[in-house]
């Protein structure tokens, strides 16, 4: 599972750390506090959320697409495993890598920035929902994708911009109307908010609203992925 650790673990950890160092530590002093938190602390939860979500998504989408493309998925589909077991296996693989990234980043970011860990249980719930939801999204895209471009398109054109616009680097509450309200339509906003509440104990919206939205999206994505495995749609001609 960790054969490609440089690509799947080390690279996202380094890129997230660079964001923390460049935006937080280098520029942070020239930016005012947000919600009572220094800027270098404020951006930590969002950056960790972004790294974990992207990792869960891209690991699963590339794993499934590669297996379909090279047809070694046949060895798995032909085996005496139920659709649920296969689905769970892929979800667990992506989630585990993503979790390792989150743990490493948290272990490095807390002493580096001084960010607190105020609500560990809520954070754990937010993390599990995020990596499961994005892992399921990765599976769905990996199953539908017809080329490598398709799956990187979703990452670069959909997930990444929505996470940035979801308030990784700023508080959505500071945006004027109608941008604040529009931001609330962005599902990734709730991922960032749920993680921020877990770390800082404060967020722009209620943590239960964030966890509820992330939970509902995760359930829908997991159900969709399960349906694809159960029916064999696009997996079996």
């Amino acid at each position: 599972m960790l054969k490609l650790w440089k690509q799947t673990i080390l690279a996202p950890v380094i890129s997230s750390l660079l964001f923390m160092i460049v935006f937080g530590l280098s520029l942070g002093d020239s930016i005012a506090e947000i919600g009572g938190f220094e800027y270098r602390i404020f951006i930590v939860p969002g950056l960790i959320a972004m790294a974990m979500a992207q990792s869960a998504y891209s690991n699963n989408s590339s794993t499934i697409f590669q297996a379909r493309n090279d047809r070694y998925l046949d060895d798995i589909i032909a085996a005496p495993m139920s659709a649920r077991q296969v689905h769970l296996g892929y979800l667990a693989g992506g989630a585990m890598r993503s979790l390792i990234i989150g743990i490493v980043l948290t272990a490095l970011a807390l002493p580096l920035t001084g960010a607190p860990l105020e609500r560990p249980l809520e954070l754990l719930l937010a993390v599990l929902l995020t990596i499961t939801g994005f892992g399921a999204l990765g599976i769905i895209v990996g199953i539908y994708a017809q080329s490598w471009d398709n799956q990187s398109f979703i990452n670069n054109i959909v997930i990444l911009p929505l996470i940035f616009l979801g308030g990784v680097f700023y508080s959505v509450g500071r945006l004027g109307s109608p941008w604040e309200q529009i931001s609330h339509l962005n599902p990734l906003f709730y991922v960032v908010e749920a993680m921020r509440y877990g770390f800082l104990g404060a967020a722009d919206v209620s943590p239960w609203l964030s966890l509820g939205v992330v939970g509902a999206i995760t359930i829908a994505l997991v159900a969709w992925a399960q349906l694809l495995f159960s029916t064999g749609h696009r997996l079996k001609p």
Partner: protein
Amino acid sequence: MPPALSIKGLSKRYGDGTLALEDLDLEIPAGSFFGLLGPNGAGKTTLIGAVCNLIRVTGGEISVFGQPGTGMAARRMIGIAEQEPNLDKFLTVYETLLYHGGYYGMRGAEAAERAEQMIDAFDLRAKRDVEAPKLSGGMRRRLLLARALLHRPRLVILDEPTAGVDLELRHELWRYIRGLHEQGTTILLTTHYLEEAEALCDEIALISRGRIVARDTAEGLKRSHGVDTLEEVYLRTVAGGRIAMDQLEEVE
């Protein structure tokens, strides 16, 4: 003992409208060495895919040693070596076999032990820690076969196992497959090499346009068509398309 494979009324129409299998019936006795011959596009690979749960069938029933084809018990009894090497390019020979054992419910130590056995059986020891893309074509064939047999299946399906391999390896694979059959394993072999089918198989079925158009021993097929070689039978039946079908009906 129930047949190794029983197929009744199997049909498969692909999304583009192609009818790959049409109301196909086939029964393969347990312990037999069965050959399936037919031209490209006749439905051989679709038939194998249906048996191995790799395609969604349009209709029909499949059972494996009396177990429903879609069930876990049936899947556990089947081993397949597909025509094109379909190996995970990030895994070594050993890991490919180890993972496969896991898919079939083997515990870690059991899968590891079995993987080492198969590595020795297929002379892959020197390549044990080499990843699939770095293997030669012949080595990949060996690995495919080792993987198909790792979980000790009772029905082994070999889809053109000797396509593109040199004569020496072909004979080596023949020896291994024969040995497997002698131990009681049922073999379903598809091949384009008619001499291979004749040399190995107890019984041969000819498939054309998604239907079995003839079935007998090699000698029986030659006798019923009044010819001297299996190649002539093949040309008269499946290779001739619609005309050959008409001729076959006349013979029948």
